[in-house]
């Protein structure tokens, strides 16, 4: 499955994360999962939310640089070797995985992957 992920540039300043969550809460948007990649000076907050387009509009209004990126979501099962097997299937079809994190859902966890070619990979996984 391909999901729309929200990426927000955030400076390492006190209270800045809270400013983001405030905007989302006020707009009645649910954060399904959040992942923060940080450097010494700024961070990149990646979010899967209930309404990515609305979230983007609201965050832009609040002055955050924000973009929507397509990411690949793969249902995970809680078993030994799952991730290894997944990576084996992907081998040869992707140049690199830019980043990865998980999204908890009612049906169990989902692995989120940022790859250059999410549509192609999705097909590869369906075929297997």
């Amino acid at each position: 499955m391909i999901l729309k992920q929200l990426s927000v540039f955030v400076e390492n300043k006190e209270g800045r994360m809270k400013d983001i969550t405030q905007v989302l809460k006020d707009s009645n948007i649910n954060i399904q999962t959040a992942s923060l990649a940080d450097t010494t000076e700024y961070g990149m907050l990646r979010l899967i939310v209930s309404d990515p387009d609305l979230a983007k509009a609201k965050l832009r209004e609040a002055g955050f640089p924000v973009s929507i990126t397509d990411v690949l979501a793969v249902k995970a099962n809680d078993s030994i070797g799952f991730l290894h097997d997944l990576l084996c299937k992907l081998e040869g079809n992707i140049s690199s995985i830019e980043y990865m994190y998980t999204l908890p859902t009612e049906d169990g966890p989902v692995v989120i992957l940022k790859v250059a070619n999410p549509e192609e990979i999705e097909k590869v996984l369906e075929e297997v």
Partner: protein
Amino acid sequence: MIWNEAKECMSRDEMEHLQSTRLVKQVNYVYHNVEYYRKKMQAAGLEPGDIRGIEDITKLPFTTKDDLRNTYPCGLFAVPRSEVVRIHASSGTTGKATVVGYTRRDIEIWSECVSRVLAMAGVGKNDTVQVSYGYGLFTGGLGAHYGVENVGATVVPLSTGNTKKQLTMMKDLGVTSIMCTPSYLMYLTESIEEQGILDELQLKSAVCGAEPWTEEMRNQIESRLHIKAHDIYGLSEIMGPGVAGDCVYHKGLHINEDHFLPEIISADTLTPIGDGEIGELVFTTLTKEALPLIRYRTKDLTSISHGKCDCGRTTARLSRFVGRSDDMLIIRGVNVFPSQVEAALLEMGEVSPNYLMIVDRVNNLDTLEVLVEVDEKFFSDEIKELENLTKKITHVLQQALLIAPKVKLVEPKTLERSEGKAKRVIDKRKL
């Protein structure tokens, strides 16, 4: 269109003759009406009769901001208060404000000078001009306002702030020209683009000044707003905006030199230097009544050129300003101007030209940090890409400045936007 062909297109001889006559008169006037100047001239062994023309200008002592401070608030005024019809003041970053005054005739000449610059930008009586300089003690707002009225155009006195209202008025009143600081116009440009209202505007020209800007910034404004942008120069001590302005050929700013006698001096030796060489700009007012100034050192660095312009004007022209001698930063022994950073960023095209330079000294070594706003148009969600961008900016700035800065990306619109003047430098070394 030339506002005052008789004055703006004089032959060199005629101009120098006029300047000489007016200089002799102004020196006499100052000697007899301003005690501070009389004492200064006497200390230099000078009498008014020693000045017989502009060739004698170098005999006269300079005037600096310190002279204005020493005589705060009105010690250099040459007329009694009953003749002063207006006061303006500029806030000093250090110490007291500098107070300037105008007689009724001074205001008339000021309006005439602004009118000449508006004509250079093609503004005439059929135009509607939005004045978005600050109104008040700052000379920008009222100076521009009187010039627009003198031209006979419709003035919309919006002053600064409230961007939403600025854009609504611009749209609803069919504003054709705007006067404001270049950085504020950049800010308005971003807002116009965000709201997607460019097609609904009738803006044709902008006359910007009160802070130094670069050719790249002018190109951006012109191409993004589809208008012509002109430069207006001035300083409150001499008059305010309108001392000089650039015509459609943009080959330097025409000085209203029948009212202000320019000189370029070496900032080190204080001696005059030739055409085309960069030095400090010095002005002597030739017709001022309330606050005449003799050889006032502006601290602005530029060069001057004579010779007829393609537009037909013969007045001397100032090249684009390199910066101010007091804006110049010496970092690790290298001369650095904020304008260089702006030009480099604009040329790169991948970031917004909004930046802040922070200079510090760590373990006796100067450090330069440059904060640059991330532009959403070029924003990547991959840290790798942002790091590449940081490296690229560092490289470009290093090429331009000859020293390596530390570049830090910041959120858009977090750096202070000027509705008056932009803050571009924080020098933490000065204790």
